[in-house]
C-alpha cells in the first residue's frame, strides 16, 4: 500500500519518473481499467457521507474501492486542510478501501492530469472502482466530469444552492442527479424543479435520472448504484465508452504536451538572457514561443 501511496505522490508532484511508472503499468499483465465515478456538489450536501455509503455498498458486493477526494489549496500559501476522511472512518483499516486526499494545487489541469494517472495506477494495483470526489466550486467539477465515466451531481433540499448549481451549468456535466437528505422538507420541490429543467434541455440519448437518497441511513444508495451501472452500459452499448476513452487519451496527451512546452519555454527564458532581453525589448511573446518550441529540445 505504501508503494501505491508513494507513486501517487510522484504523480501529484509531476515527477519525471511518471514515465517509467507508465511503462511499468502498461507491462503489468493484470492491470485493468477501473470504472470511474465522479461525485460533485456544493459544500454541505452530505456528499462525503453519500460516497461513504456507496463504498459500503460496493464492499458488500466484494468490490475494492479507491476514493480520490480533492479540496482546493489556498492560492496564497499552497496549503490546504483536507477533511474528507472524517466521513469515511467506517472503512478505516479495510485493506480493500484506499482513500487519498488530494489538494487541487490550483494549477491549470492539475487535478485532471494527476487523477488520470492515479486511476491507471490504481487499476494496476487491482482496484475495481475509483470514486473521484470534489467540492463543486470553480473548475474542479468540470475536471471531474472530464475524467469520470459517470458524473453524479448531488443536491439537497436545504441551503437553497440547488438552483444556483443548475444555473452554473452543472446540468451539462451530470449523468445522474442525487437529491440527498430526501427526508427533509422541500425535497419534492427540488426534484420537481430539476425535472422541469431536464425537460427543457435539448434531447439526448441519455436522460439523467434523479435519485432521492438519505445517505445517513443508506437509503437509495442501491438505486443510485443501479443508475450508475445503467449509465455505464448505455456508454458501452452506444459505443460512447470507447469514443470517450480514446478522446480522453488524446486530450490528456495534449495537456501533457502543453505542460512540457510551458516548462521548456520557462527554462529557455531562464537560461538564455539574450532571448529574454529580446522578448522584453520587442514585446513579442507569440514569436518568441514559436521560436523556442522550434529550436529547443529537452535534454
Amino acid at each position, binding site marked *: 500500500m505504501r508503494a501505491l501511496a508513494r507513486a501517487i505522490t510522484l504523480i501529484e508532484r509531476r515527477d519525471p519518473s511518471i514515465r517509467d511508472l507508465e511503462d511499468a503499468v502498461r507491462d503489468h499483465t493484470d492491470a485493468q481499467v477501473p470504472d470511474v465515478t465522479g461525485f460533485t456538489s456544493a459544500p*454541505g450536501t*452530505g456528499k*462525503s*457521507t453519500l460516497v461513504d455509503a456507496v463504498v459500503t455498498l460496493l464492499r458488500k458486493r466484494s468490490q475494492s474501492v479507491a476514493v480520490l477526494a480533492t479540496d482546493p489549496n489556498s492560492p496564497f500559501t499552497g496549503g490546504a*486542510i483536507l*477533511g*474528507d476522511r*472524517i*466521513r469515511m*472512518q*467506517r472503512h478505516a483499516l479495510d485493506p480493500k478501501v484506499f482513500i487519498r486526499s488530494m489538494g487541487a494545487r490550483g494549477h491549470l489541469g492539475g487535478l485532471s492530469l494527476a487523477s488520470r494517472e492515479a486511476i491507471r495506477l490504481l487499476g494496476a494495483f487491482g482496484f475495481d472502482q475509483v470514486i473521484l470526489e470534489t467540492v463543486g466550486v470553480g473548475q474542479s467539477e468540470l475536471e471531474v466530469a472530464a475524467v469520470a465515466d459517470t458524473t453524479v451531481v448531488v443536491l439537497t433540499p*436545504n*441551503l437553497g444552492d440547488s438552483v444556483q448549481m443548475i444555473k452554473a451549468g452543472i446540468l451539462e456535466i451530470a449523468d445522474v442527479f442525487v437529491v440527498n437528505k430526501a427526508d*427533509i422538507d422541500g425535497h419534492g420541490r427540488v426534484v420537481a424543479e430539476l425535472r422541469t429543467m431536464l425537460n427543457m434541455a435539448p434531447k439526448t440519448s441519455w436522460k439523467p435520472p434523479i435519485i432521492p437518497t438519505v445517505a*445517513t*441511513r443508506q437509503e437509495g444508495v442501491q438505486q443510485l448504484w443501479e443508475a450508475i451501472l445503467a449509465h455505464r452500459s448505455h456508454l458501452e452499448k452506444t459505443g460512447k465508452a470507447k469514443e470517450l476513452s480514446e478522446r480522453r487519451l488524446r486530450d490528456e496527451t495534449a495537456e501533457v504536451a502543453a505542460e512540457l512546452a510551458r516548462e521548456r519555454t520557462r527554462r529557455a527564458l531562464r537560461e538564455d538572457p539574450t532571448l529574454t532581453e529580446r522578448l522584453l525589448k520587442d514585446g513579442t511573446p507569440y514569436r518568441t514561443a514559436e521560436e523556442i518550441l522550434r529550436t529547443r529540445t529537452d535534454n
Partner: protein
Amino acid sequence: MKVRARDAKQAWQEEFESGPVRDDGIETSTISGIPLEPLYTSEDLPRRPEEYPGQFPYTRGIHPSGYRGRLWTMRQFSGFATAEETNRRYKYLLANGQTGLSVAFDMPTLMGQDSDAPTSRGEVGHCGVAIDSLADMETLFEGIPLSDITTSMTINSPAAILLCMYIAVAEKQGVSASKLGGTLQNDILKEFIAQKEFIFPPAPSMRLVVDSIEYCAKEVPKWNTISISGYHIREAGSTAAQELAFTLADGMAYVDACLERGMHIDDFASRLSFFFDAHIDFFEEIAKFRAARRIWARWMRERYGAQQERSWKLRFHTQTAGVSLTAQQPELNIARTAVEALAAVLGGTQSLHTNAMDEVLALPTDKAARLALRTQQLLAYETGVASTIDPLGGSYFVEALTDEMERQAEAYFKRIEEIGGVIPAIEVGFFQKEIADAAFRYQQELEQKRRIVVGVNEFTVEDEEPIEILRIDPRLESEQAERIAEVRRKRDQAKCSNALNGLRKAAAGTDNLMPYILDAVRAYATEGEIMHAMVEVFGTYTETAVV
C-alpha cells in the same frame, strides 16, 4: 441643568482626546471583540421601564430576595479513578461545607463504553470516575443519603442510563424518586456543536432527551432534567455572544421537541436549567448572564405562550473558564478564578463551580480543590457582594453591554432560523465553523500580542517550579475490568438479557425508553451493554467535517 451636563461631557471628550494614549497595542474591545467606548454615560442607558428582581423579564435576577434570601449553591465538580476513591472525596467535600455534589465521569463512561472495551485503554478513571454498572453507582454514593443532598451529573449521550442508575441507588436506599433533587446535563445539542461527545445521530439523541424530560415530569418532579450548556461552546472557542445565542437556541430546540411530543409548556419549562461559562472578561460576562435571563423570559412568554411565571425564569449554574487557566505559573489561576467567580455572582448565578489552579494540568489535588471552594466562601462571606441584589443594575456600561449581548443573540437566532433550525445548522457545520473562526481569531490576537495572557505571552518566567499533581494509578484499569467481570458473573443472566432485549424492541418503536433502561440497570446490565443495544437500533453519528 441638562445643558450643563452636556457641556461637561464635551469638556471631558476634549480632554480625553488630547490626553495621553497608551501605545502598547493591546485591544480595547472585549475578549469577544465587542468594541468598547472609553466612557459610558446616562446617554447610553436604554429607555425602558425600571426593572426589578423577581419580576419579568428578570434581567436583575429571578428571585426578589437575591442572595439575601439564599446564597448560590457551591457545587464543585469532582470525580476520579474509582467509585470508591471518589466516594471518599465526596465525603471530604461535604465535611468541608460544600452544599451539593457534582459528578465528573471518565471518558469511557461519557462515551457509553465499559472500562474493559479496547478503546478505553489509557482512559479509565483519568478525567473522572469510572462507572460501568449499578454496582459502581452504589459504591459512589455509599453512606451518602440521596434524600439529603442534590447531585449534578455531567453526562450527555448516555445520560438516561446514569439517571436510571441514580434512581436505582435511591430505591436501594429506600428513597423514593419523587424526593430526588439534582441536575442531569443531558444536553446533546451542544455535544454536536462543541464538545463532540455524541454517539447516536441527532434524531434518536433528541428522542432520548425528550424521553427523560417526559419521564421525570411525572416520576422525578424535583429533578432538573437538562442543563442546557453554553460552557462547552465557550470552551471550544466561541465568543460570549455565540455562547449566549447558541445555548438559548438549543434551549428553544428542546422546547420545540417537547411540544412536538405533546407535552404542555408549563409542565416542563421550569425544569429546564442552564449552564454557562464565566470567562475572564469581567463586564462582558455579567452582561451575558443578565441578557440570558431577559431573552429567555421574553421567548418563553411571548413565543411559547408559557403562562406560569416559573416557566419564564432562566436558572443557571456557572463554572469558571477552564480555557482561561494556564499551565505556566499556575498559582495565577487562583486569581483568575476569583475574578471569574465574582462575575458569576454579580451576574446572579444559582450555583457555581470554581476551577482548581491545577486543573489545566490534571485532576485537582485535595489541597487545590479546597482552595477553589474557599475562594467561593471568601466571596460569599468576606467581600459583601452578596448583600445587594444585582449591584451593577443601572450601571451605564453594564446596561449598554447587556443590550448589545441581546442584540447579537437575536441576530444569531435569525441566522439559525434561516438555515432551518438548530439540527440542520449542526448538519451543515454552521456552529462549528463560527466557533472555529472565533477560536482562530483569538489565537492570532494572542500571537500578535494584541491580547495578553499573563505568564504565557508576556510576564513569563524562565524556570517554572513544577507543582504537585494528582496521578492516576495505571493499575486501576485492570482492577475496574475485574469489577465488571465480577458483576457479569454474579448477575442473573436471563433477567439481564431479557431487559436488554426489551430495550432493543422498545427502541425500534415509539415508547418512552426510560422504564426499559431502568429495568436493564436494575438487572446490572453494564453501561456499554445498554448503549450497544440502542446503537443496534439507532446507529452512530459522524461529525460534519468543519475545520
